């Protein structure tokens, strides 16, 4: 005989008296056992209470799935209390993945037709929370019918249940469209709210539906107007603003409808302006509406006046006391900074002030926005704010700030000295947070500022005297000291207080770096090489350097050992070469792909001995066989035409100093200008339906650009189309990448390709072509000669 059941309130009270987790678990297990036996006895009297108790225990985190079937029984009961607990249990314990959920479909169906609106409400609510796709399909028509009911309570719930249905089964969207159009005419706010949500959901899922709903934009605008003129419904008043939730939802829907559509956007321009100017901003509710308005204005095709209004609203938000509002203002400004740069610039001062905010997420947004706003005019003042920020900012923002500062400095530095100063400042404050490629970049920058060698090395030396823990700083400093040590020792430099530096002091510093355990292996390598370089730049202490170098010949670190051994050799056997080898480095160029290779060499402590060439590390080997064939045809057994390749030469040639054809570089440089020389175009080839037309542009001097267009007048496409060409001996040729390799049939399109010609001796231009393509499954190859170039092309 089951003991009489404990009341819910009593159970809760008892459980709360438990002092430890174990005690609580014990109580709960006992109660669960009682409940289980009550369920087994199928006693309907206390079922409702037992399930309620079970749900409470579930909320505390204990398993309760054995109650699922009981929920079903409760739902089927005619009593309201039973149903209510049963549905709650269904929502908490079941989800759509359980098979048991299907079993309640029938109950829900019956309850949807119940005479009591509250029971209908329960059913709709449950369906809307956990209805599976199958359930939704079964019950969609019922829900749709309820949308037309006379009772607004039901309509509200039905609308949102429909939202859930539409999410689970998008195909049912069509079913709800007619009802929603009618519902938009309702006065009841709750119903309107639900309808707007439903329409939003449908439009988000189906572009067709979106198009249909564009017609209701005027109606929505009317509703908004009504809301703003207030007095519409005092019940929905929040802090003096009529139904901000509905306003926000309508604005959101307008945004979706107006996106990418000029007409719809125009229809809503006025109302948006009205909302933007008339809404009360003293309360959060008003600001919520304004924020949504701003989002909408930015997302539709609004006129520029409106956009400026939006930016100004955001600017006002930035001055608000409430940090929530400042935060969202910055989020939105960040999204807009690319498209409306000038408008956002006007608020730069406020944004920069937000760098000092106390909330970390506000700071982060302010940093992102500030970096986006830096331009050539304001770079000095912005840096004055950003650099102190770097000193104080939380560690997670340091690395982003440092890279941002570098990027901005690189793009907008007003002078080289300012640039170097800025980078030095960053390295001293946040040196451990910068990225690896900063060091080689900085070195290149320094070498390119030859007038500042003295200044730079002095500053770096002083920085290193203070602090040797920041590795990037130390690496750059040791490199500079090695290179420009002579300037350091002469002690004289403008802009820097004169400081007498003796050779011993410099060597001390470098040796400290070598020995300090704060130095990373890369830093040590830099220091050793710097020491070595100094051996040719100082007079008195060469022996000291020799000693240090020989000590490191037996260092455990293999890299250091190797260097030391080689430097030793430089001292002993190759002493005559030493000064030549350790000369100052030539200027490096920044920005070419080879520059990166060079910098890789540099960061390993570049050794100038060994006969490595500085440039031309990555040369494209000409594809010899193809070239040779063509050359044979023209009878030129000469390898001075390395460029007759159909390979795309996408690397900028300015960096490839190894290639003879600096011509290639010049040609590429000049390609920016479009200069129509007025040379008639020719049909170079026309056979089997494939025609090639050459059009010409003379560049400076002996340079010519030929643009070829390949067209196909046959009935089938020509695929794998490849064009190759060769020219006479003294002419140089370079092929760019083609636009594609399929020439469409029936002249429906063309393949174009650029050919660059340099004809310094102005010989008569001739060209041998080789074409290959596939058509209708078979491949075709052909060779032809073009000799009908117009005279203006080469004279």
């Amino acid at each position, binding site marked *: 005989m089951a003991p009489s059941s404990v009341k819910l309130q009593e159970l809760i009270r008892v459980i709360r008296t438990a002092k430890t987790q174990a005690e609580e678990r014990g109580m709960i297990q006992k109660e669960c056992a009682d409940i289980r036996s009550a369920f087994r006895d199928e006693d309907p009297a206390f079922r409702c209470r037992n399930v309620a108790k079970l749900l409470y225990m579930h909320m505390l985190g204990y398993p309760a799935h054995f109650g699922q079937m009981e929920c079903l029984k409760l739902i089927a009961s005619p009593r309201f209390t039973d149903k209510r607990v049963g549905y709650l249990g269904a929502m908490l314990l079941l989800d759509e*993945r359980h098979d048991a959920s299907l079993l309640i479909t029938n109950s829900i169906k019956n309850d949807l037709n119940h005479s009591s609106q509250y029971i209908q409400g329960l059913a709709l609510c449950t369906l809307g*929370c956990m209805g599976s796709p199958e359930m939704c399909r079964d019950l969609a028509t019922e829900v749709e019918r309820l949308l037309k009911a006379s009772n607004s309570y039901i309509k*509200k719930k039905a609308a*949102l249940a429909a939202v859930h249905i539409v999410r689970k089964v998008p195909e049912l969207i069509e079913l709800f469209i007619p009802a929603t159009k009618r519902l938009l005419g309702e006065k009841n*706010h709750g119903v309107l709210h639900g309808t707007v949500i439903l329409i939003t959901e449908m439009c988000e899922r189906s572009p067709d539906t979106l198009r249909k709903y564009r017609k209701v934009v005027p109606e929505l605008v009317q509703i908004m107007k009504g809301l703003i003129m207030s007095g519409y419904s005092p*019940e929905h008043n929040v802090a003096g603003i009529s139904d901000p*939730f*509905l306003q926000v939802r309508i604005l959101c829907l307008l945004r979706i409808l107006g996106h990418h559509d000029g007409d719809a956007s125009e229809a809503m321009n006025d109302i948006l302006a009205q909302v933007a100017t008339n809404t009360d901003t003293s309360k*959060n509710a008003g600001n919520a509406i304004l924020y949504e308005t701003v989002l909408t204005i930015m997302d539709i095709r609004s006129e520029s006046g409106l956009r400026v209004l939006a930016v100004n609203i955001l600017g006002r938000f930035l001055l608000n006391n409430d940090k*929530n509002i400042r935060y969202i203002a910055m989020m939105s400004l960040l999204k807009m900074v690319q498209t409306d740069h000038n408008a956002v610039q006007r608020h730069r001062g406020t944004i920069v002030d937000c760098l000092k905010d106390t909330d970390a997420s506000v700071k982060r947004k302010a940093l992102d926005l500030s970096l986006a706003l830096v331009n050539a005019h304001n770079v000095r003042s912005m840096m004055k704010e950003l650099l102190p920020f770097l000193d104080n900012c939380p560690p997670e923002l340091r690395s982003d700030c440092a890279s941002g500062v570098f990027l901005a400095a690189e793009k907008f530095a007003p002078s080289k000295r300012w640039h170097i100063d800025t980078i030095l400042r960053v390295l001293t404050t946040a040196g451990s947070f910068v990225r690896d490629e900063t060091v080689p970049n900085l070195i290149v920058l320094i070498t390119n500022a030859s007038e500042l060698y003295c200044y730079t090395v002095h500053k770096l030396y002083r920085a290193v005297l203070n602090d040797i823990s920041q590795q990037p700083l130390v690496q750059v400093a040791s490199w500079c000291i090695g290179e420009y040590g002579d300037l350091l020792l002469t002690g004289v430099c403008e802009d820097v207080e004169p400081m007498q530096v003796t050779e011993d002091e410099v060597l001390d510093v470098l040796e400290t770096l070598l020995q300090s355990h704060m130095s990373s292996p890369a830093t040590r390598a830099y220091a050793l090489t710097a020491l070595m370089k100094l051996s040719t730049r100082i007079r008195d202490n060469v022996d000291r350097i020799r000693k240090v170098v020989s000590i490191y010949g037996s260092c455990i670190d293999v890299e250091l050992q190797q260097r030391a051994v080689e430097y030793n050799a430089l001292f002993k056997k190759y002493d005559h070469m030493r000064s030549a080898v350790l000369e100052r480095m030539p200027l490096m160029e920044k920005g070419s792909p080879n520059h990166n290779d060079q910098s890789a060499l540099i960061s390993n402590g570049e050794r100038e001995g060994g006969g490595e060439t500085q440039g031309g590390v990555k040369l494209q080997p000409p594809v010899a066989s193809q070239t040779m064939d063509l050359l044979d045809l023209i009878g030129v057994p000469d390898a001075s035409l390395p460029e007759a390749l159909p390979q795309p030469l996408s690397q900028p040639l300015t960096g490839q100093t190894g290639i003879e054809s600096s011509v290639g570089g010049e040609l590429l440089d000049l390609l920016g200008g479009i200069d129509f020389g007025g040379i008639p175009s020719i049909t170079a080839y026309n056979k089997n339906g494939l025609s090639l037309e050459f059009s010409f542009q003379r560049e400076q001097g002996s340079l010519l650009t030929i643009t070829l267009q390949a067209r196909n007048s046959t009935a089938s496409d020509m695929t794998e189309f490849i064009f190759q060409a060769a020219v006479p001996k003294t002419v140089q040729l370079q092929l760019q990448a083609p636009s594609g390799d399929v020439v469409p049939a029936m002249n429906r399109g063309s393949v174009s390709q650029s050919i660059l010609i340099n004809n310094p001796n102005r010989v008569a231009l001739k060209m041998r072509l080789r074409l290959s393509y596939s058509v209708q499954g078979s491949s075709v190859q052909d060779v032809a000669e073009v000799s009908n170039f117009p005279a203006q092309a080469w004279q």
Partner: protein
Amino acid sequence: MGTGWPPVLVQEMCFLPQKIRFILIQNRAGKTRLAKWYMQFDDDEKQKLIEEVHAVVTVRDAKHTNFVEFRNFKIIYRRYAGLYFCICVDVTDNNLAYLEAIHNFVEVLNEYFHNVCELDLVFNFYKVYTVVDEMFLAGEIRETSQTKVLKQLLMLQSLE
């Protein structure tokens, strides 16, 4: 951030274009007073989520904003006495509007329970669920008028 979320979980939460993902009421110690889920989770996933939310929200104080970025979505929360009311929404949603919604909800609770306190929510947990269900449905805000909601709640109560 924090402990790693199982990748499937994150994916599900991104691609479900639902507005509200869950509503939580927790006290400072981490005990759940209400958990309303608008998407499918296993029980242990739910537990994990609850713990994560608790960890993130309790370290913040008055200096911080009421919005926390939480992987690919965000949590709008507000602290009332010893309870944290948290709503988890999409990243693109209007933060301020949901903040209003939380406040609306709390005011209704206050009216309904006559100066509500945490114990009210504990002993009447199923009634709190009813309030939630009157104001939110299918992951959206359903009824915003406090008077209307209170009227309905009283009607429902009379049926018991």
